[in-house]
């Protein structure tokens, strides 16, 4: 009887403990591999969460009468958030104050434009003066209005020979630079981004995606197919970008998703590009691998294949963050192209991405728009994430020692973080602590910096010990000479003695 009681009590305890553990693990609904990074051997390493969900904003919490329907894009300017509510032919302007999201206004028509309303607006942009640009896709125009929603001008199909006049002009993404030039990504246009001057004049295309094809494709097409077959095959055409965004310096970040796994091998695919004013890719790639998202994926899984970036956003400190729709993950890269962290998964829980279409940043917070849930998920950096940002900001500002201290804090949270080792090493190198710097660089497998530290170390060692070395060499050279001389003298003396004795 007693033993039965004890057993029951034990069982109960076990159940409570287990459920407590379960509750602990499920606290935020994340698996342990929610946030990760790649190590030197390009293997996934779990890491502390860099971002966590602060809240999810739904139509009801905004007090919308008609809920959002398949919204396609977000834009953030200051505290204002613009949502292209594509399914309802309108644009929502929200305002965020702390954790509160309030609806400022619903933009569904432009005063003085014809037609005044929108037809499936796919993207929205707001400049510093409060002018709003809307990609009014099915009305074949990009419409610009001032802060009071008065029509300013519209950007329509270019009346130019370089633009195929049989093609419908379907603008779907846009960015505007600081001098008012508008860059439009239009569906079915493969010559690059359509560029307009501030006065609405079409001035050509920039940043055409170079064509990728293999030698074998070329040979096959040239020599082994007939004219009729060739007409039916897809021709070698460049592909259009998936999404674009503009950074504070006016460079356009573009993502490309039309490539195969093998195009990643020699970095032909270039999934993320940074286009300068003439459209060349100037993205800095200083890591072992270019920024391509995931480096490995499970064979024959549902989500097999390379990361395909649906959207990208650039923080004010040039850190860029891209959203991969293949596995529903968000990747952060520093300006040198080194992966800072990756997080996310597919699913319906908070912090998982299933129908995410657009990602934007507000300060260091991330806002993610979901077209199926019709919601905006707000992510805020954790202590770990903030420390990483702080360290790289300090480094950019030239506060190297402060940055090293912050990296030490990061290491306390994640001992596998290579960037932290490199950051500390650099600071030690500046303080002439070469041997310690070498140790840190070795930890991060950073050969270039290790080599630099080692050269200083070697120089220091040689300078410190040069006296001994020279003395030793001199000794080695001189001693035999002296010994020989002494022997010779001794022999001469002996000979002399001998001669003397004889005589």
């Amino acid at each position: 009887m007693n033993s039965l009681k004890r057993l029951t009590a034990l069982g109960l305890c076990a159940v409570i403990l287990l459920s407590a553990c379960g509750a602990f693990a499920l606290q935020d609904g994340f698996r342990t591999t929610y946030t990760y990074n790649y190590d030197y051997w390009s293997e996934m390493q779990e890491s502390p969460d860099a971002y966590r969900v602060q809240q999810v904003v739904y139509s009801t919490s905004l007090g919308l009468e008609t809920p959002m329907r398949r919204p396609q894009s977000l834009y953030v300017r200051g505290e204002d958030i613009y949502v292209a509510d594509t399914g309802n032919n309108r644009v929502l302007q929200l305002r965020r104050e702390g954790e509160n999201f309030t609806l400022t206004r619903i933009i569904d028509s432009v005063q003085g434009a014809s037609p005044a309303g929108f037809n499936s607006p796919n993207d929205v942009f707001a400049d510093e003066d409060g002018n709003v640009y809307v990609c009014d896709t099915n009305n074949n125009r990009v419409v610009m209005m001032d802060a009071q929603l008065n029509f300013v001008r519209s950007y329509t199909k270019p009346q130019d020979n370089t633009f195929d006049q049989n093609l419908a002009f379907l603008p779907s993404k846009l960015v505007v630079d600081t001098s008012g030039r508008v860059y439009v990504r239009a569906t079915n246009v493969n010559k690059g981004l359509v560029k307009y001057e501030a006065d609405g004049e079409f001035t050509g295309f920039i940043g055409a995606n170079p064509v990728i094809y293999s030698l074998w494709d070329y040979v096959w097409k040239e020599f082994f197919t007939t004219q009729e077959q060739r007409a039916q095959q897809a021709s070698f055409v460049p592909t259009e970008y998936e999404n674009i965004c503009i950074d504070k310096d006016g460079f356009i970040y573009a993502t490309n998703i039309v490539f195969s796994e093998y195009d990643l091998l020699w970095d032909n695919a270039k999934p993320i590009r940074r286009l300068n004013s003439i459209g060349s890719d100037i993205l800095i790639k200083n890591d072992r691998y270019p920024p391509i998202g995931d480096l490995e994926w499970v064979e024959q899984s549902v989500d097999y294949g390379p990361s395909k970036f649906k959207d990208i956003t650039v923080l004010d400190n040039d850190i860029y963050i891209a959203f991969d729709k293949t596995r529903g993950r968000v990747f952060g890269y520093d300006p040198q192209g080194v992966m800072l962290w990756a997080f996310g998964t597919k699913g319906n829980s908070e912090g998982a991405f299933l129908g995410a279409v657009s990602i934007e940043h507000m300060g260091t917070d991330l806002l993610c728009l979901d077209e199926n849930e019709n919601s905006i998920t707000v992510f805020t950096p954790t202590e770990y994430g903030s420390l990483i940002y702080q360290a790289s900001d300090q480094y950019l500002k030239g506060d190297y020692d402060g940055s090293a201290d912050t990296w030490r804090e990061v290491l306390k949270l994640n001992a596998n973080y290579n960037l932290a080792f490199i950051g500390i090493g650099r600071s030690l190198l500046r303080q002439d602590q070469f041997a310690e710097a070498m140790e840190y660089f070795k930890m991060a497998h950073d050969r270039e910096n290790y080599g630099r530290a080692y050269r200083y170390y070697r120089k220091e060692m040689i300078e410190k010990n040069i006296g001994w070395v020279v003395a030793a060499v001199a000794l080695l050279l001189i001693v035999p000479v002296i010994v020989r001389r002494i022997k010779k003298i001794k022999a001469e003396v002996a000979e002399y003695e001998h001669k003397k004795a004889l005589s």
Partner: protein
Amino acid sequence: MSTKRLSADAALSGAGKAWWQKYVSSLRYALHVIVRPFDGFWDLSRENKGSLAAANTFLVLFLLTYVLKLMYTNFQFISAPVQYINIYERCASLLLPFLILCLANWALSTLFDGKGHFKDIYIAMCYALVPYVLIQLPLILISHIISVDEGAYYSVLMSVSVIWCVFLAFIGLMQVHDYGPGKTIIFLFATIFGALVILFLILVFFSLLSDAIGYFVSLYREITFRLS
């Protein structure tokens, strides 16, 4: 002349010290072979300047150098994932192709009218590995002295060691079998083909063997099951 050498050989083979002397001199002969390969390889088997013991020593040293290189080269110059390396596997992946190539070479030498015996081929090939040991062993030390910017010296020496070995192996085969260079090239391709055939036969043999063993095992199981 010949009687004199015979008596010298007899004298050498007599005492243990003499055996040791022959071994050391055959080791030292490698230094002659690698700088004067045409003369060196000719005398290696025909004048009995080399020995099987020395050849084995060089092969072991070669494997040892390879392992030491993997383990102790400065990380600036080698990116071997030390945590995953299996030394035996790595050694086998060098040793087996080496032996199979020697075997294929010997097997085909009768077809190609070659003069070498298996022992001669093996000894010549082992002597051809000497530059690898002589260059790569000091390179391990050098890798700790130079920095990655001076890596050009390292990679040049690395390439020199391999090219030298290949060159020696080529000359070695030429001299052992008494071929001209053109015939040696054809012979080399045939050797590689022969090695592939040997590999194929080994695979077939083992798969058939496992099938046969499986058959008897299941037969035994069936019988014991019926009887019990």
